[in-house]
C-alpha cells in the first residue's frame, strides 16, 4: 500500500513537472490576450477611447454580437468565406496530400526531388507566394490572362477584378500546396512496420489494396492531425488575402482573420471591440472544428 502511494505521488510530481514549462509559456503569452478578447467583446473600444475600453452595460451587453450578425455585411461575408475555405482545404488539400504521400512512398525514381519540390511552396514565406500570385494573376504581365486568351480569344480575364473569380484566385494560391502535410504523412507511412506489408504481399494483395486496406487505416490519426493543421490554416487565412486580393473586389474575399485585422488596425475607427467579438467567434469556431475533426478521425488515445 505504502509503496503504491509514494509511486502515485512521484507520478503526479512528474506530470506537473513536465507540464509546467508549457503551461507557464501559455500563461505568459496567451492567457491574458484570451481573457482580454473575451471581455472586450462586451465593451466599447475604438479610436475614441483607445486606451480605456468601456463596458457596454448590462442592457447592451450583447450589442457587438447583435450588430456583427445583423448589420455588418463584411463580417457575414468573412464568416461564410472562412467556412468555405475550411471545407475546400478538407476536400481538396487533404485528399491531394494523402494521394501524393502514398504515391511518393512507393519511392519511384525522382521521389525525393518531387517531395522537396512539393514542400517548397510551404517553406518560402507567404509574402513571396502572395507576390508571385499577384503577378501571375495580373492582366498586364501575368500568365492567367494570357492563357485564357489563347483558349477563348478576347476573353481578357482579370482574375482579381471579378468577385467570383477572385475567391478562387485566393483559394488556388494555397489549396494545392499540401507539401508539409504530405511530409507528415510520409513520416507516418515510413514508420509502419514493413512486416505488415510483407504479409499482405504474400497474401497476394495488390498495391492499391495495400494502400486502401492497410496504409490508410494506419494513417488515420496522422490524417486527423494534418487535417487540424490544414483546416486551421483555411480558417485563419490571412496573408494570401492581404497580399493578393486585399479582401476585394468589393470585400468579396474577406476571411475572419482579415476582417479582424481590417476592423481593428486597418480602419481609422480602430474598432477593437468589434474585432475581438469576431475573435471570440473565431476561437469558438476553431475549437469546434478541432473537436469535430478529432472525432471524425477518432484520434482517441488511451494510456
Amino acid at each position, binding site marked *: 500500500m505504502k509503496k503504491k502511494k509514494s509511486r502515485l505521488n512521484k507520478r503526479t510530481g512528474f506530470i506537473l513537472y513536465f507540464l509546467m514549462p508549457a503551461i507557464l509559456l501559455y500563461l505568459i503569452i496567451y492567457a491574458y490576450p484570451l481573457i482580454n478578447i473575451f471581455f472586450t467583446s462586451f465593451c466599447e473600444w475604438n479610436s475614441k477611447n483607445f486606451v480605456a475600453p468601456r463596458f457596454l452595460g448590462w442592457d447592451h451587453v450583447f450589442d457587438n454580437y447583435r450588430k456583427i450578425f445583423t448589420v455588418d455585411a463584411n463580417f457575414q461575408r468573412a464568416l461564410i468565406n472562412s467556412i468555405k475555405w475550411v471545407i475546400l482545404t478538407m476536400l481538396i488539400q487533404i485528399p491531394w496530400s494523402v494521394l501524393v504521400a502514398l504515391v511518393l512512398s512507393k519511392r519511384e525514381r525522382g521521389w525525393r526531388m518531387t517531395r522537396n519540390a512539393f514542400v517548397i511552396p510551404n517553406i518560402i514565406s507567404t509574402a513571396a507566394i502572395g507576390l508571385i500570385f499577384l503577378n501571375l494573376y495580373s492582366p498586364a504581365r501575368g500568365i492567367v490572362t494570357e492563357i485564357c486568351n489563347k483558349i477563348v480569344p478576347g476573353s481578357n480575364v482579370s482574375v482579381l477584378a471579378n468577385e467570383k473569380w477572385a475567391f478562387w484566385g485566393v483559394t488556388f494560391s494555397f489549396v494545392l500546396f499540401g507539401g508539409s502535410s504530405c511530409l507528415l504523412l510520409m513520416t507516418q507511412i515510413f514508420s509502419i512496420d514493413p512486416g505488415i506489408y510483407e504479409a499482405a504481399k504474400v497474401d497476394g494483395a495488390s498495391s492499391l489494396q495495400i494502400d486502401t486496406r492497410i496504409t490508410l487505416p494506419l494513417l488515420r490519426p496522422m490524417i486527423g492531425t494534418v487535417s487540424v493543421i490544414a483546416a486551421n490554416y483555411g480558417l485563419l487565412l490571412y496573408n494570401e488575402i492581404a497580399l493578393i486580393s486585399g479582401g476585394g473586389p468589393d470585400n468579396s474575399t474577406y476571411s475572419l482573420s482579415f476582417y479582424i485585422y481590417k476592423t481593428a488596425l486597418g480602419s481609422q475607427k480602430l474598432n477593437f471591440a468589434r474585432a475581438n467579438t469576431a475573435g471570440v467567434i473565431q476561437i469558438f469556431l476553431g475549437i469546434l472544428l478541432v473537436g469535430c475533426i478529432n472525432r471524425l478521425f477518432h*484520434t482517441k488515445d488511451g494510456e
Partner: protein
Amino acid sequence: MSKRKKNGEHSEGGSRGAKIFRYFIMLLVMIVSVYPILWVFISSFKKNPGGLSLPDEWIFDGYVTIFTKLDIQTYFINSFIITIISTVISVAIVAMAAYVVARMKFFGRALVTLMFSTTLFIPSVSISFPIYRLLGDLGLKDTRAGVIFIYSGLGIAVTYFILQSYFSTIPKEMEEAAKIDGCGYTGTFVRIILPIAKPGLATAGIMAFLNNWNEFYFASILLKSPEKMTIPALLGQFTSAYSKNLNGMFSAIIVAVVPTIVIFCLLSETFVKSLTAGAVKG
C-alpha cells in the same frame, strides 16, 4: 523482389498502369509547386517582367543592386539564430507536455489539449498589444532575445498536435519494459521515448522551424533596427522599395526564396536519415 526488400530506396513495384499513374501525379506536383517560382525566376531577367515567353534580352540589374547594396548575410544570420533557438526551446517544452498527455491519464488532461487548441485561433492582432507591452516591461523590445521568446510560444499548438499523435503510436510495452528495468519516469522519457520519437521530433522541429523562419507580423512589430531584422522583414522592405521596379522586385523574391529552398533541401537529407532510423526501431 528479395533484392528490393533489402534496399528501401527503390520502387516497390506495382503494375505498369500504377507506375504511369504515379509518374503522372509526380509530374503534376512538380508543375504546381515549381512553376510559379520558375516563372518568377525567368521573369527576373526580363526588362519588363511578365508573360509566358523567355526573355528577349537577359537583364541582371535587379540582382546587381540587391547584392551590392544590401547586407543580406546579416539578415540570414539573424533568421538563423532566432529560428533555431526558438525551435529548440519550443520543441523541448512541448515534447514534455505532449508526452505526459499522450501517455498518462490524469485529471485535466483534456483541458491541456483544449488549452493548446485555443492558441491556434487567437487572432494575432489581439495578441500583439499584450506581447508588445510584455517585452517592453522586460526590456526586450527590439532584441533578438525578445523575438526568440515569442517565437518559442507561437507555434506550440502545431508542435503539440504532431508530437502528441506521434507519442501515442509508440507501443506501450517499451515503457513497461523500461519500468521493470528500474527506470524512473524521467529516465523512461529520456532514454526510451525520445530516441524512438526522433522522427516525430524531427518533423515537429522542421514544422516549427519553417513557421518561425517565415514569421513576419511579430518580426516587423518587435524588431526595428535593420541589423536585427530577419529575412521576411527584408522581403517586406523589398516590396515597398521595389514596387515601381518590377525587375528589381522579381529578383528580390528570388534572392529571398532560393537560400531557403537550398537550406531545406540540405536539411531534408538529414531528416530522411532520421526517418529511416526511426522506421527500423518502430
